């Protein structure tokens, strides 16, 4: 009996080989790019990490230099997340379960428009509009909640504080978080929703009984993707924040911690020599942080996919 193993000796046309090669090559280019980002940042960054304090502009060795920036990055992103998570869940629920069917698409589109606004425009809006409007509320916070370290004051006279930055970042990450929440809310099994309603549950109880449990991992991964965005956002922070590189929990004063990204944007133009390397190294730190957050977020999403069997 003749045994022909097709998969072993496939006859393939030249066109097919070229085309398959080109598309595989493109895919591998992406791998190479990602590896290139890590490699080139490392190559250019390591001298900055090793530089002695008197060789860089900051006059500090790398860890004390980047430490406060990491703190500021995490703090700003955390504020943004605290604000954006409840709001995005509310918005997503409104669009998926409260709004009239016919308007839902338009409303979703409006929220998506927020994602289209360039970050430099957010920055302009932050200094030109929002910061000024927040001066008075910050004064109120200092006066009435000043016993909390967050609002110890003295309140900034310009409003360009880390809290303002957090608010701007929250607006910026709202669309992606809303989009993901909306998607998982819409995937709630109809049967569960109807079962809840048939039990006499109100709409809110239906959301709590049927929608939220089903959507938990989706909400988490959406929040983590938003966190990734907030950690890396540059221009809005660089423009709005009046930074002085301190480590402080005070959210409304005029001395604020800076963030890695904003610090790079603000210092890069004037930097030279090893200072540039130090900035690249801080970028590498940012890359690692966001990479870890994004990988974690994607793993949550992927686990969810495997679990629900959706999207084969």
């Amino acid at each position, binding site marked *: *009996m*003749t*045994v*022909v*193993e*097709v*998969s072993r000796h496939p006859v*393939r*046309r030249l066109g097919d080989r070229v085309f398959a090669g080109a598309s595989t090559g493109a895919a591998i280019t992406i791998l190479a790019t990602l590896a290139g980002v890590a490699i080139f940042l490392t190559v250019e960054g390591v001298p900055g990490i090793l530089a002695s304090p008197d060789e860089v502009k900051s006059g500090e060795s790398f860890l004390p230099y980047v430490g406060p920036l990491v703190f500021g990055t995490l703090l700003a992103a955390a504020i943004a997340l605290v604000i954006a998570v409840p709001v995005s869940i509310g918005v997503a629920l409104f669009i998926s379960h409260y709004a009239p069917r016919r308007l839902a698409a338009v409303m979703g589109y409006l929220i998506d428009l927020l994602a289209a606004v360039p970050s430099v425009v957010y920055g302009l809006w932050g200094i030109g509009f929002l910061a000024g409007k927040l001066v008075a509320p910050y004064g109120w916070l200092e006066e009435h909640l000043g016993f909390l370290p967050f609002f110890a004051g003295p309140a900034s006279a310009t409003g360009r504080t880390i809290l303002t930055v957090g608010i701007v970042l929250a607006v910026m990450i709202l669309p992606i978080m809303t989009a993901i929440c909306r998607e998982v809310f819409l995937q709630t099994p109809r049967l569960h929703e109807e079962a809840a309603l048939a039990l006499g549950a109100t709409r809110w109880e239906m959301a709590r009984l049927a929608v939220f449990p089903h959507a938990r991992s989706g909400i988490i991964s959406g929040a983590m993707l938003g966190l990734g965005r907030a950690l890396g956002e540059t221009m809005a922070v660089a423009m709005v924040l009046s930074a002085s590189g301190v480590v402080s929990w005070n959210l409304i004063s005029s001395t604020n911690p800076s963030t890695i990204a904003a610090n790079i944007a603000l210092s890069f133009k004037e930097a030279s020599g090893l200072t540039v390397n130090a900035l690249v190294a801080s970028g590498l730190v940012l890359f690692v942080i966001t990479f870890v957050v994004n990988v974690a977020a994607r793993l949550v999403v992927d686990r969810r996919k495997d679990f629900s069997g959706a999207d084969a």
Partner: protein
Amino acid sequence: MATSIDVSDLNIYYGDFLAVEGVTIPIAARSVTAFIGPSGCGKSTFLRSLNRMHEVVRGARVEGKVLVDGEDLYGDDVDPVDVRRMVGMVFQRPNPFPTMSIYDNVLAGQRLNSKRMKKTDADDAVERALRSAGLWAEVKDRLDRPGSGLSGGQQQRLCIARAISVEPEVLLMDEPCSALDPISTIVIEDLIHELKAQYTIVIVTHNMQQAARVSDTTAFFNLAGVGMPGRLVEHGATEKIFSNPDESATEAYIQGRFG
């Protein structure tokens, strides 16, 4: 010149999974052969192995021989693309190309392979294929309209026209009427009768009356058991299979006792 097919000891695998086992069957030239059997018995898989369409799925492979006019379809130097030019196929659901006109759909085999044709030759080829598919009268005034605008039955005949315009020798049909209404089904069945003068036709059908109406030879496929590969139970002249089959399983299936 139509062609006969000789299949001997064919095993079809998807990866390690043996889907169809040990099929040996001669298929006569210029005749209609029908494959019948319950769902999942491997008759469609077997049909697709006759023009190597099953290889679209990763990991698909075969053992054994499929000889078309004495030449092994699975020979080492055989390009599946050439096989499919010789052995055409019509699918369960009509699938005209939505981006092409009726005219271009008929010529899709040539167009997609960038074959140059003189305008008059192309016109002739389109008319000939559409006439053979019994669609010419209905569409000759709107050849430039999209194929997706036709009714389901018309779309299926357009797909037949598309398949025969590349001048294959064998035409495989995978339940070609299962998505159509009864009237369209009769039109297609009549068409199959006419086409067998020129082509060797193999048709998979769920509909036993259809097998009895259109085919000269019938082959009955069945599963050896749950989780077991499909196999060919018996084959023979259609009248014999439907009146006096050798195997009791065939009789049971034809009388509607399972499947």
